[in-house]
């Protein structure tokens, strides 16, 4: 009997590892979910003279995508964002995080601009308020300006179809009902 013990222990471990595979270790719950978006006021990327702030997010369901020209995963995610922007389902706002203005602009003109507009967060202070710890990150914000969901890492086709799109459609319906 005692010779079977290692096998049993191992099989238990495999079960947990198997469950672990389905979980995403990067999916750390954000304390901001269900709370109003943190206040911010930033210059726009394309035009330093114009401002963009929390109040601009109210009144519609929107996505806020945190990106940067130095971020490799953002490049991977970018084509999907461009595609989504063309479908006009939901406005996507950008937050260019810890970047330089020229690099950010060059990046958008080379790869296409899916954003209604991008706010320019040069020193990353707004990113800290939003609890950004890895780029890219995407927030879903409802009509009242409340953060309803946070996606860490590049948006995949699967995440879009299974999580983000249904949530956005639901929120849009809620909004129109109210």
């Amino acid at each position: 009997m005692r010779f079977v013990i290692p096998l049993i222990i191992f099989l238990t471990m495999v079960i947990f590892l198997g469950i672990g595979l389905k979980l995403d270790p990067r999916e750390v719950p954000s304390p901001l979910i269900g709370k109003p978006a943190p206040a911010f006021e930033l210059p726009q990327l394309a035009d330093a003279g114009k401002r963009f702030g929390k109040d601009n997010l109210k009144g519609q369901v929107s996505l806020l995508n945190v990106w940067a020209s130095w971020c490799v995963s953002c490049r991977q995610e970018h084509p999907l964002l461009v595609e989504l922007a063309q479908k006009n389902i939901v406005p996507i706002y950008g937050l260019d995080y810890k970047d330089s203005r020229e690099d950010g602009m060059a990046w958008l003109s080379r790869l296409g601009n899916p954003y209604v507009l991008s706010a320019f967060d040069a020193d990353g202070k707004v990113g800290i308020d939003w609890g950004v710890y890895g780029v890219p990150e995407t927030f879903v914000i409802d009509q009242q300006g409340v953060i309803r969901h946070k996606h860490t890492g590049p948006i995949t086709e699967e995440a879009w179809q299974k999580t983000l799109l249904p949530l956005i459609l639901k929120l849009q319906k809620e909004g129109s009902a109210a």
Partner: protein
Amino acid sequence: MIAELGHFSLVMALMMALLQAVFPLWGAQRRLSAWMAVAVPAGRAQFLFLLVSIVCLGISFVNNDFSIEYVAKSSNSSLPLYYRIAAVWGAHEGSMLLWAFTLGLWTCAVSIFSRSLNEEMLARVLGVMALVSIGIELFILFTSNPFDRLVPSPVDGNDMNPLLQDFGMTIHPPMLYMGYVGLSVAFSFAIAALLGGSLDSAWARWSRPWTLVAWVFLTCGITLGSWWAYYELGWGGWWFWDPVENASFMPWLVATALLHSLAVTEKRGAFKAWTVLLALFAFSLSLLGTFLVRSGVLTSVHAFAADPSRGLFILIFLALVVGGSLLLYALRAPMVKDNARYALVSRENLLLLNNILLVTASASILLGTLYPLVLDALGLGKISVGSPYFTTVFVPVMGPIFLLAGIAPMFGWRQAEPGRIFKRARWVFLASFGLGVSLVALSWNPADFKSMAGLSMAFWLASSALLSLYSRVSLRANPLDGLRSQSPSIYGMTLAHLGAAAFLVGAVMSNQYSVEKIVRLAPGETTELGGYRFKFEGVKEVAGPNYRAKEGSFQVFEGEQAVAELKPQKRVYKVQRNTMTEAAIDPGLLRDLYVALGESMEGGAWSVRVYVKPFIRWIWLGGLLMMAGGLCSAADRRYRLQARQAEFADGGLAGAKAG
């Protein structure tokens, strides 16, 4: 073309591995010599195809062939040549190819150096290694092919991760893999012995040198990794209990236990079932390490590519290999009889205690590494287990190991006389502890019991290792004769134990007496730390091949005498736009001076991190000594001689059976 050749070679290697698994294993079961004879040529052919494959990938990197997705992802035309070659294993796909190649290399080595094995054993060993090869090659071909083309191909590549652009990091993965994969040899010997029902001391004698060499590589890989973390990550730490580090440390602990247990099985014929189990565990933990690192079930500072489909593949592979071998163990091990007799107080039992402690240490690390995962799987929330847990569970287990390692070599096999040993060792014991306590009390801090215990333990281990060597040598009248008559494995053991002592000194002293300071310095200003004066001379721009850097310059004085000039850098890599901190270190046997640039401030000032770390170099010096010890033991001629004698014995037996 070259990529296709590489891809084709990989497929061919898989075919060879299939031949190498099916015919020899079936042949050994049916005692068909011709079938068993396939093992050696198939194993060598598999190695050659893997060699061609990895060389093809290397050529693609050297030629900057960015039409290959993997090359485009992890290299760049401005990357210096040696990093382009090292980029072959700089990311997931290539490092898995390196894994497969390393296994091929070990297979080839076994086929060359095991002429003394009987044909059944050799066929089974190579067959089991081939099964592992098949799994890993299928994994590469189906989920992580490094030869995939990218259409359209980019003009230039995405560059290698700047963290990895460093000498230590270029040779760390090959060393580590040589160790990880090398444990597959001991694993295959164990499986082969279980299959054949021939768990005897000849099996232990064959396994021992292979395990030793794999252990040396593993030690080397871990030491390099820790050294790299120290000077490259820029935090001045040398071990972080990161899941990826733990993944290499767990097999090391079990392999260390295995080495000691193999000695008992070889010399005394005891602990057979236990030794087999350790051999299975050691390689299983290597595979588990690969799974943890490659599947992304755990997050870590190493943050390699995480892909659930890959994870599932490795998990199934892991389940088959480990589950299968443990099932075989459950079926066969009850038949193994230990015929050795030994008293309660004997070297056998002390080594058993050592084994239990090492395995406990390894199990507690495994627990800490998997605990967050288990909690998450049960829906109990996300936590991370950090160094407080590991130091709390690890230190109490390691303490007795160091005590034991000192005393155990003085105990005889079978039965020992503790009274005599106590009499011989007590003065050394008391002197070590007296020296440790008084040294700490007089030079540093009279209330620092941790350092006192640590240093005393290190002195005890070192002096008892030398004492036990002395008592062996003094059996001969002429000391030179005595020295010459000792076998290399005795010297190996002494060196390795001295290495463990040196490591302990480094770990304790650098932990307790490192001082650090974060200061704002303008050019011309100085700061004092640990008896040294650091003068900041300013920052200038320098250009590297694929980065720009701001290089600071510091003069370090001890009293009025200049002792070092340090030039830490802050680099910005052009392609990935990562900012990297290159610390500048003035190494020394007694202390390291370590300076890293932080952020630039107004008026040409910088925030600067300064560390003085006493004895930290001893940590890696200990690693070197352990490696030297391992090599020394592996070079023991007795393995070759006895292996040859075993061959005669087997030949005689087989002849008798045939007759």
